């Protein structure tokens, strides 16, 4: 609209204070939509405090990092926003990590299916159980600590306790790994007691590596636990006639003990987590 008419300050001030009647206000609004000069005049008399307050809200939203798919899904599931952000920043809760887990397990499942009924099926089953028990250990080790965690500093600066954050992430990783292992187990040739035999061992190994990480670096702790686990599994399997000895009653009892001792150590040494862990 091209016009030579412009609003004066009195009219604009009446408008911004809500003192104009409907007809005048409406017609001024129609004019303002097309007239930069009158908008500018209105802007010069606007309430700075309120404008600045609103702007700080806008710039906060605009500057906030875009929530990823995982984070939005977590929020949608009712996880609180800051927890969702810290979870989504967990390196071992990324798709690539899950793919790696799936490939490792998938190989064992494939091997078991290739050699149905033989000694090699048993070996493949053993491999599946051993790997399934190890997955969360690696996942949790890669879930926190300097060097692996890009959100390490954010996590350290967050008001949440480091141990709590660590446990939240460990639970998430355990849950996700358990889901993948369960899917793998369904694809095994024989569905028997071994379907869930890795569950307690994986919990025990994860807690053991967490407890150990109060003494050494998380990655070192995970490496040590993995090494000891593989060694024990190999020795126990070869020295006794039963290949699955570590997953049977006695073995599971030992794992219950490991869970208890590890939980005790973590509770005792929780301060180490708050100080940023051992370096």
């Amino acid at each position, binding site marked *: 609209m091209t016009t*030579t008419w412009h*609003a004066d300050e009195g009219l604009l001030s009446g408008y911004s204070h809500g003192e104009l009647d409907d007809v005048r*206000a409406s017609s001024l609004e129609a004019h303002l939509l*097309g007239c930069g000069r009158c908008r*500018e005049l209105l802007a*010069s008399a606007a309430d700075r405090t309120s*404008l600045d307050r*609103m702007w700080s809200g*806008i*710039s906060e939203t605009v500057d906030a990092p875009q929530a990823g798919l995982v984070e939005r899904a977590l929020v949608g599931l009712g996880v609180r926003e800051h927890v969702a952000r810290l979870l989504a920043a967990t390196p071992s809760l990324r798709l690539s990590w899950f793919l790696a887990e799936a490939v490792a397990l998938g190989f064992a499942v494939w091997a078991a299916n290739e050699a149905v009924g033989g000694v090699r099926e048993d070996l493949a089953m053993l491999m599946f159980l051993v790997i399934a028990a190890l997955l969360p250990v690696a996942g949790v080790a890669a879930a926190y600590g300097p060097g692996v965690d890009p959100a390490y500093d954010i996590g350290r600066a967050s008001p949440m306790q480091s141990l709590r954050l660590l446990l939240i992430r460990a639970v998430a990783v355990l849950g996700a790994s358990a889901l993948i292992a369960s899917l793998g187990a369904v694809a095994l040739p024989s569905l028997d007691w071994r379907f869930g035999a890795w569950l307690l061992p994986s919990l025990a190994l994860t807690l053991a590596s967490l407890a150990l990480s109060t003494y050494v670096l998380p990655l070192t702790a995970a490496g040590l636990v993995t090494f000891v686990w593989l060694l024990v599994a190999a020795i126990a399997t070869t020295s006794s006639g039963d290949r699955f000895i570590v997953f049977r009653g006695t073995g599971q009892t030992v794992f219950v003990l490991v869970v208890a001792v590890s939980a005790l150590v973590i509770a005792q040494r929780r301060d180490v987590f708050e100080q940023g862990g051992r370096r």
Partner: protein
Amino acid sequence: LCSPGDREGGVGTKSDETDEELLQAVAQRDREALRLLYERHAPWLVPRLARRCADPGIVEEVVQDTFVAVWKGARRYRGQGDVAAWIWGIGIRRLIDRLRRRSSHIPMPLERSATVVSAEDEVLLGVEHGDLGAALGRLSPELRAVIQATALDGLTTKEAARLLDIPQGTVKTRLMRARRELREALA
């Protein structure tokens, strides 16, 4: 003399860029451009929304929502009309969304001051709307609110119903009556 895309400098803005250029920059994730657009357009958006919603807290939230939407959706502006009109379209719809989410909202009182149209106002109305202004002034507040929401704010009858908190059917009948009265007044 001013027209859409007028070069405007001064007040809070050091930039000579037009709104369209600023919007393009915003689409390229230019924060400073968003700030300039905000400085130009928030000052009129606030009172215009405040005329349609009595709660200043909601108005502030809606203004913030609007500029966040401008930041996210600057790409969607395809040079159709004034940038100001485009921003208004976002703002009024955000307001309606916000009001709908509240269980009940208090619509603005339709009349805030007695309609005494002075000679000076007649000139203004004559400039902007011709005789329409005077005719609008003679409409009942209910009919005028409906005309304002649809013809001036550019809302659909459904959106107007939400804004005014009345059934859509009522909007339609009032709109027909208002149009008939206006036609008669302008005949």
